[in-house]
């Protein structure tokens, strides 16, 4: 069996695919560009959520949205290693010291991989308890985990809030989630001497930097999310 998929939350699936080269080489924040097969023409970029170098499996978490993800969510469908491909993009930097992880929704996925590689605490936000993902995994990998939901059905009610967090213990903050949340992180941390790295998301075509369709506005002009990112130093982004 080369892959296995299971539903882990409302409309959200976890895919584990046998891709030993990727498992060995991937860095937190990098993604794979997956050929979903079927009628979806373009590949789908999915951040690496976790790897097992021993078994050679790589884990991805995705939301069922359209043709490509419907194919991936089909438990009868097996994804091969060439369909998964290689590790792409620029991930989170290696940091000396403790890191605060801020994840919103599916944005929690790449941060779990980051939590495996450094000492970290996590603040996670979800729409509601049914859409919450990976909380047991974060609890095992992190010191503390604070959960927020928009409707208060799990953890604290409201959007991600750092007011109770002692930021002085961290060397950096890694964030991934909806753009509004990332912008909010930039605002919350604007006065801190704390580097903030954000993982951006855009629809892609090539996935390796050649076609220029997945750009985001940065102080250097339009930068490629797939090649110059997806992880950017937050100050470089034009929010």
């Amino acid at each position, binding site marked *: 069996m080369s892959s296995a998929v299971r539903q882990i939350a409302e409309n959200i699936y976890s895919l584990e695919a046998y891709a030993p080269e990727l498992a060995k080489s991937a860095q937190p924040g990098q993604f794979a560009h997956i050929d979903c097969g079927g009628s979806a023409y373009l590949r789908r970029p999915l951040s690496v959520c976790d790897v097992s170098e021993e078994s050679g499996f790589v884990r991805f978490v995705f939301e069922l949205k359209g043709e490509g993800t419907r194919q991936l969510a089909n438990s009868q469908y097996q994804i091969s290693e060439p369909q998964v491909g290689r590790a792409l993009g620029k991930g989170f930097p290696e940091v000396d010291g403790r890191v605060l992880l801020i994840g919103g929704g599916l944005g929690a996925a790449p941060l779990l991989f980051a939590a495996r590689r450094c000492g970290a605490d996590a603040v996670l936000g979800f729409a509601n308890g049914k859409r919450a993902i990976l909380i047991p995994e974060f609890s095992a990998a992190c010191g503390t985990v604070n959960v927020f939901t928009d409707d208060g059905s799990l953890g604290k009610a409201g959007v991600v809030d750092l007011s109770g967090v002692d930021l002085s213990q961290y060397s950096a903050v890694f964030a991934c989630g909806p753009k509004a949340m990332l912008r909010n992180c930039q605002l919350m941390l604007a006065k801190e001497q704390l580097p903030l790295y954000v993982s951006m998301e855009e*629809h892609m075509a090539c996935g390796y930097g050649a076609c220029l369709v997945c750009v985001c506005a940065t102080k250097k002009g339009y930068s490629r999310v797939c*090649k110059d990112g997806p992880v950017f130093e937050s100050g470089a982004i034009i929010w």
Partner: protein
Amino acid sequence: MVSFAGINFKNRVTLASGTCGFGREIAELYDLSRLGGICTKGVTLLPRLGNLPPRVAETPAGMLNSVGLQNPGVEAFVRDELPFLRGFDTKIIANFSGESPEEFAKIAAILVEGGVDMLEVNISCPNLHAGGTAFGTDPVASFEVTYAVKEAAKGVPVMVKLTPNVTDIAAIAVACEKAGADALSLINTLLGMRIDLKTGKPILANVTGGLSGPAVFPVALRCVWQVARAVKLPIMGLGGISDVDTAREMLLAGATMLSIGTAQFRNPLIPLEIIDGLGE
């Protein structure tokens, strides 16, 4: 070896402009020297930021793009990119566009001075002097641009890239031939759009974009067939070629050279598979 517009290519396969940047990202995957040639990302006289994102929308068997000619400008291309490309044993075909025949000629002169093997004239861009209609939709404007570039090219072969968004592509091809073009490449993308049902708005920030991928192959094949019967110029066929079979069909329609574009996004190694499959 394939002779095309006076140049000897090691095989028939090139990468299509706009799908391979200036080759650097592809060079991380395989040796560019295996290719017949590379049609580099379209450059303009001055740097261009390109269009606002979103710039891509998926379609059945293809995609729309509205990159909007994001490029560092012709001077930066010659200075920063061409030396890298010259490190490979492959032909460099420089794609470019301008806003007037004079500007096309000026850019062509800089590219020729820089040492490219062939010019690919993108006449699908809007003619600002004629109110923004594309040069390539008008035989007279196509003639004027081709003529101006040919004058500036100092013998470097001039290939004109035709748009399919016209009533009679053969008429444009004939105009380019009369103006002295050495070759034609076709087709550029087909103009299209998609709407997001959740927002009720166009997916592309630019509203419309260029359709590419297997969806356009039958249109490309028809265009190459028609043009091959209207002019004596050699043709580089492109538009939706995605495997050895579609490559063979394109050659049967009348193309001498081939260009592979969007298919690379699904499988970046497909140009090499087509080279091997054609026995070149």
